[in-house]
């Protein structure tokens, strides 16, 4: 290994998306060229994936009754975790909370539809801000912050699809939050510290299991695909660019 080779700490930070954008790009190029570095990085990515995937079924389990009762007894309203998302969903799908931005989007809406996979364990995925924007929260916000399309698990409750730069210089990502009855599909763009949801639609999911290596944009509703086409500048991010964008905390052109 030459002196210019990345050390162990640098490679681990690369795997964890913790390097500055320019360094992420440099290491990505080295990894692409060098089999020994690639073996190490792929091994560490496999470890991360294996650990995280092992907990995936647990994340979809209902919380235990005694914990729910404890939460309720602690004056966490009378709303059990299972209902938090569903209530949020209903609130989200009203014109009052959506505001003019939603009215401008020609997308299909289902009122009061529970995505029951989330109803069991997840909190609200979306919220309205005082300025009338709809932003991601909870599991959706975390997935948009952290998940890479290239390494995510096909059974993840929230999956990201395409990541791209929009005409306003923002980093944007498409997402799917899939339930057994309906799926919520949308586009979120990072702005300040929030993911602002700029378009969304609900669909009835494909009954077939998702293929493990499904294309990032596959299964995207037409209305979302059209919205991406209107917004995108250049090509969607490849795996390397996606990793760099994550390392830059989805800062868009501000990271350049």
């Amino acid at each position, binding site marked *: *290994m030459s002196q210019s*080779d990345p050390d*162990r*700490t640098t*490679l*681990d*930070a690369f795997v*964890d998306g*913790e390097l500055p954008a320019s360094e992420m790009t440099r290491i990505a190029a080295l990894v692409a060229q*060098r089999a*020994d*570095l690639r*073996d*190490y990085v792929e*091994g*560490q990515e*496999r*470890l*991360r994936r*294996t*650990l*995280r*995937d*092992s*907990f995936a*079924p*647990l*994340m979809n389990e209902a*919380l*235990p009754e*005694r*914990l729910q009762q*404890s*939460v309720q007894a*602690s*004056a*966490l*309203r009378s*709303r059990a*975790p299972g209902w*938090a*998302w569903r209530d*949020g969903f209903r609130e989200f799908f009203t014109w009052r909370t959506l505001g003019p931005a939603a009215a401008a989007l020609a997308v299909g809406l289902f009122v009061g539809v529970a995505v029951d996979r989330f109803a069991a*364990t*997840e*909190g*609200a995925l979306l*919220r309205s801000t005082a300025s009338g924007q709809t932003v991601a*929260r*909870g*599991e959706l916000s*975390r997935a948009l*912050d*952290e*998940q890479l399309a290239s390494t995510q698990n096909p059974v993840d409750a929230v999956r990201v699809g395409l990541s791209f730069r929009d005409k306003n210089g923002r980093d944007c990502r498409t997402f799917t939050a899939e339930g057994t009855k309906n799926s919520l599909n949308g586009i979120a763009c990072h702005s300040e510290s929030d993911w602002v949801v700029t378009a969304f639609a609900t669909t009835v999911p494909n009954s077939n299991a998702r293929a493990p290596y499904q294309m990032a944009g596959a299964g995207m509703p037409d209305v979302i695909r059209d919205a991406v086409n209107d917004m995108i500048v250049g090509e969607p991010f490849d795996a390397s660019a996606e990793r760099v964008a994550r390392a830059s905390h989805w800062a868009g052109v501000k990271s350049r």
Partner: protein
Amino acid sequence: MDASEDTIRSDIVALLPRLRRFALALTGNRADAEDLVQDTVERALRHLRQWQPGTRLDSWMFRIAQNLFIDERRSARRKRTALAEVAQSATVRDGARDAEARLTWSETCSALLTLPEEQRSAIALVLIDGMSYRDAADVLGVPIGTLTSRLARGRDGLASKIFGTMQDKRP
């Protein structure tokens, strides 16, 4: 209850699955993990006004959980339970040592429990929960260099346990 406090409480509910996963990674068994989450939520709600708006709610909650775990780890009961479950599950099955191992969470917990506690916490926050180094170091109250050192040792220990020889592929 004002609207902002209501929002925070709702956000706490949304964190519960992640908190439970973190608690499982720390304790290695459901009963103790659920106790830890319950204690964490109750303490957070009692001290809700100590949380600073504009800072990460999840980091604050995870820090409470971590501190509670440290406070209670001295409990002989907790230690006995964890060790018993490790023995019962016989660590990671040999079948996991393939290219794309599929582990159950209990098998992962068994592997995690073979690590020193400080490495386990670091792995749980960064590799499993996906926190940034900065946020994980903040939760654990250590410098980032200490965190990355714990992560490296934890990675080696887990890779050895799960994949057998992966740590030997280091360039």
